[in-house]
Structure formats: structure tokens, C-alpha cells
């Protein structure tokens, strides 16, 4: 056990835990988190591949309003440690990621509840006009979120590798094979969540078009992106809801709010 490896892995875990709540720099997204863990554990290619696969699964995991999504942070960090540090297979890592995402979700709900007490402590200090105290409590709550992932990471790191290998070897072949097959399918849930948020009857047309065009292998994603942007711009130009009063002289303030803002700016 290399002490530098352990420090780096725990540091990445802490970072991912903080990002799990902040949702800004995206250190908690599998493609970043697993790659970093892989680099820290000296097994970067496995981390990269695991991250790519988990990223597809986690595409639709998003916190909306006060609802808490499955936790990408714990799923990525813990399964990346198992794969890149303890030597589990990538398909095993994916299968384990799902229960880990739920465990992480429970943990963040716990911390978010605990933080209510911090909010009340902040109120008391605020009546004294103390900026320092508000800052202290705020960052303290962030540290708790970091520990939420760092502590499980330390626990998983400290499990003897032999135990992990034995446990993984004990999984029968039909289950490992089945989980690998299922891993390829559960991406669909992420897609469904994203679609479910955006879909209106009119927009299904564009989904259908994308599906039909996807059969043309020569069109890579950059080409598809260009087609998509063109479609979006055309839609905005021609959709009736953005063109009210088009022929009737218009009002004096002009039609396009973007122009108005840019003129004022």
C-alpha cells in the first residue's frame, strides 16, 4: 500500500463529495471521477473505460428542485476504487455502481438534513452581523459533504485486496454475464429520464428524425450536432409561437428580446 496513492484517492473522493452537492465543476461525474481515481491508483485505462460506461448510465441523474437524484459521486468513486485499486472487472464495477448510487443518495439526504441545524446556527450568528461565522458554517457544511464520500472511500480502500478478490470470484459466471448484459441496457433509463424532461408532442418529431439518421454510420456525433443545431434554429424561426403578429406591422419595441438586451447592454 502506497501512502501517496491512498492520499490521492481520498483527495479525489473528497472533491467528488463536495461536487456532488455543488454541481459546478463536475468532479463527481463518472467520466471525471473514475478517470482521476484510475490515475491516482495507477490504473488509468481501466478508470477511463469504467468512467465512460458509467457516464452513459448516469446521463439522466439530475437534482431538480428539492428532489435528490441517485448519487453519481459515491457510485463513481467506490466502484472506481474496486476496479482500479482492488482489480475487479469493469462489468462488476458497473453492477456494483447501482446499489452504491442509492447508498450515496441516502447519505446526501442525511447530510442535507443535518445541515438544517447548521442553518439555524448561522441565523444566530447573523444577528451579530458576523460575516466570518456565516462563511465558516457554510464551508463547514461543504466539508461534511466531502467527508460523505471520503469516509466510504477510506473504508473500501482498507478492505484487504484478497477479500475483495475472493468475494468477486464467488460470484457465479451466469450472474457476471447477466449483469454485463443488463449493464448495456440500463443506459436506456438515463436516456428515458432526459427525454421525459424535455418531451412535448411536437418535439418527438425530432427524436424520430434522430433515430432514423443514427443508422447512417458515416454521420459522427459532430455532424449530428451540427444537424441538431440547424434544426433548432430553423424551428425557432418558423414555429408559430415565436412569430406572433408577423405580418401585421408589429409594435414599436421590436420583436426580439435578445436584440433589445444587446442594444441596451
Amino acid at each position, binding site marked *: 500500500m502506497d501512502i501517496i496513492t491512498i492520499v490521492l484517492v481520498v483527495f479525489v473522493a473528497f472533491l467528488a463529495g463536495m461536487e456532488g452537492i*455543488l454541481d459546478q465543476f463536475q468532479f463527481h461525474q463518472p467520466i471525471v471521477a473514475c478517470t482521476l481515481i484510475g490515475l491516482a491508483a495507477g490504473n488509468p485505462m481501466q478508470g477511463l473505460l469504467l468512467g465512460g460506461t458509467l457516464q452513459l448510465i448516469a446521463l439522466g441523474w439530475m*437534482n431538480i428542485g428539492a428532489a435528490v437524484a441517485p448519487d453519481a459521486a459515491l457510485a463513481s468513486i467506490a466502484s472506481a476504487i474496486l476496479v482500479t485499486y482492488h482489480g475487479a472487472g469493469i462489468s462488476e464495477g458497473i453492477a456494483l455502481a447501482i446499489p452504491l448510487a442509492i447508498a450515496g443518495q441516502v447519505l446526501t439526504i442525511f447530510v442535507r438534513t443535518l445541515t438544517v441545524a447548521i442553518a439555524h446556527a448561522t441565523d444566530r450568528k447573523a444577528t451579530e452581523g458576523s460575516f466570518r461565522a456565516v462563511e465558516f458554517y*457554510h464551508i463547514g457544511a461543504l466539508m461534511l459533504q466531502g467527508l460523505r464520500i471520503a469516509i466510504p472511500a477510506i473504508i473500501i480502500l482498507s478492505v484487504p485486496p484478497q477479500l475483495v478478490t475472493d468475494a468477486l470470484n464467488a460470484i457465479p459466471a451466469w450472474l457476471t454475464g*447477466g449483469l454485463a448484459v*443488463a449493464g448495456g441496457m440500463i443506459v436506456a*433509463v438515463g436516456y428515458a429520464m432526459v427525454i421525459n424532461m424535455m418531451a412535448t408532442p411536437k418535439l418527438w418529431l425530432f427524436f424520430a428524425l434522430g433515430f432514423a439518421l443514427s443508422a447512417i454510420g458515416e454521420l459522427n456525433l459532430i455532424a449530428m*450536432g451540427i444537424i441538431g443545431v440547424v434544426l433548432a434554429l430553423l424551428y425557432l424561426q418558423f414555429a408559430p409561437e415565436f412569430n406572433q403578429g408577423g405580418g401585421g406591422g408589429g409594435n414599436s419595441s421590436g420583436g426580439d428580446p435578445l436584440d433589445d438586451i444587446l442594444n441596451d447592454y
Partner: protein
Amino acid sequence: MVEENKNKYRLTKKDRLNVFWRSQFLQASWNFERMQNIGWAYAMIPALKKLYTSKEDRASALKRHLEFFNTHPYLAAPVLGVTLTLEEEKAAGEDIDNAAIQGVKIGMMGPLAGVGDPIFWGTIRPVLGAFAASLALSGSWLGPIIFFLAWNIIRMAFLWYSQELGYVQGGNITQNLAGGLMQKLTQGASVLGMFIMGVLVPRWTNMNFPLVLSRVDVAENEMVNFGAISEAANEGVLSGDMLRGVVEEIQAGLSIQPVEVTTLQNTLDELIPGLAPLLLTLFCVWLLRKKVSPITIIAGLFVLGTLGYVVGLLG
């Protein structure tokens, strides 16, 4: 008097940059009671510190910014900008009460959250993430690097410029953002998002049905004549023309196997590639609309996938 104060109580670009930097920690102390409230106050502190000096003023400023607040973490930026303008005016002695400031915050946060979720979580992150994942799965380091850089450049640019827009525009911005402009952006982003989803569903869902439907012996004249080639090679008379002939036969569509195996997957692909992933995704959308939780669906798919593998339907 008020005019004179206005110059005194002006936030510099440095102050506003400070607020921008801190706004990235908006959710650090997200709690179930008042959600982003401490984070909001934390972001406002550089401005409040400059505008208010007495202990009473600071306490009341903190109190008013520790009220309930929750929106999309990036769309808080324009609200911060507007609030900075309001605080400047209040400090300069204009008659703006706490309720007015709270009203602006609450009034803006709802519509803006509805705009930020589909654009950032629903479109940009899945599209960028899927693109980066495809690079990563082909073993390219550009995957995570592009994802991280592109996302953070877009995000930081948005945070800073929308905060500045809010600051310059003041109260007018609510109308502009919640009105036409943001609606256009949301719709445009959704069109792009739905299109890309249509592309990704068949391309990146791995479903294979190896179940063999038929085995047909290929007639001799429909198969590449490998026998002649190997004979010629053994006798040492193999010529370039013969090899070219083989390649031409393959290109002409002759079979290279003596038995043609048709699996369920081949039949489905002939219909239209990606039919099974499409049906699976639509089924998931339907389940989500029935309020089945995503985790339940994922667990169900694990059971289904394992069963399918065990009976040999999926592979």
C-alpha cells in the same frame, strides 16, 4: 444626497468578480429547510461588506439574505446581479424594503429554475457527457478532458455574463429572461436535445439477441471458392490475380461461411437498426410517466437482463 451616495456605494468589477467566484459555492450548505439560503448569503457577502459598515446594518442585511432561496445553481447568477443593483440603491438611501428584495428573488427563482434544468441538466450535460463517453470508450483521454474543459468554460462564462446582465439590467431582466428569450433558448435546446437523444438511443444501448433462428447451407456457387486457393497455395502457384478474384467475390456479396446463420438480432437489424433499444427506451419513458422511480426500473432491468442471459435470449 442620494445621487452623491450613489457614487460612494458603487460595487467595482472586483467586487462583482468576487461575488461570481463565491456563487459557485451556492449549494455547499444546501439544506431541506431553506435550501440555498446560506450559500446565497455567502455569495452576497463581498458586496454587503462594502455597502454596510455598522453592525446593525450588517445583521439586518444578513437576515434578509438568509431567507429561503432555491433555483437552478447557475440561474442564480442573474438573480444575484439584480440583487446587487438593488442593494447598491438601498445602501445609497433609496427606499427599498426587505420584502421588495425578497420579492425579486422569489419572483425570479421559479421561472429561471424551469429554464436552467432542461438547458443544463437536460441537454448540455447529457450531450457533452455522451460525446465524451464515446471518446473514453474508444480509449481516448480527450473524453474526460473535453468534458471537463467544455463544461466549465460554458458554465463560468454563463455565470459571469448572466450576473453582469442582471447587474446592468436591474429589474427589467425578469421580464426578458422569463419571457421570450429564455423560452426560445429552452425550446431550441430541447429540439437539439431530443434530436441527439434519438441518435444516441440506438447507437449506445447494447442489446444483442444471439438466439439462432435458422441455419441454411450455402450453395457451392454462392460461396467463395477457398478450396481452389488453398490448393494453389500448397502447390506454390498462387498468383495475385487469384487473390484479387477472391476479394472481388467477397465484394460481390458471396458468402465466406459454408452455413449461413441468422440470429434474432440479424432479423431485427434488417427491419431497422436499433429497434430493440428504441422500444426499451420508450418503455422506460412510459414507466417514468407512471411515476415508477428510476432506481426501480434499473433494478428491474438488471433482473430482466440476467434472466435473458441465463435462458440464452440476450447475450
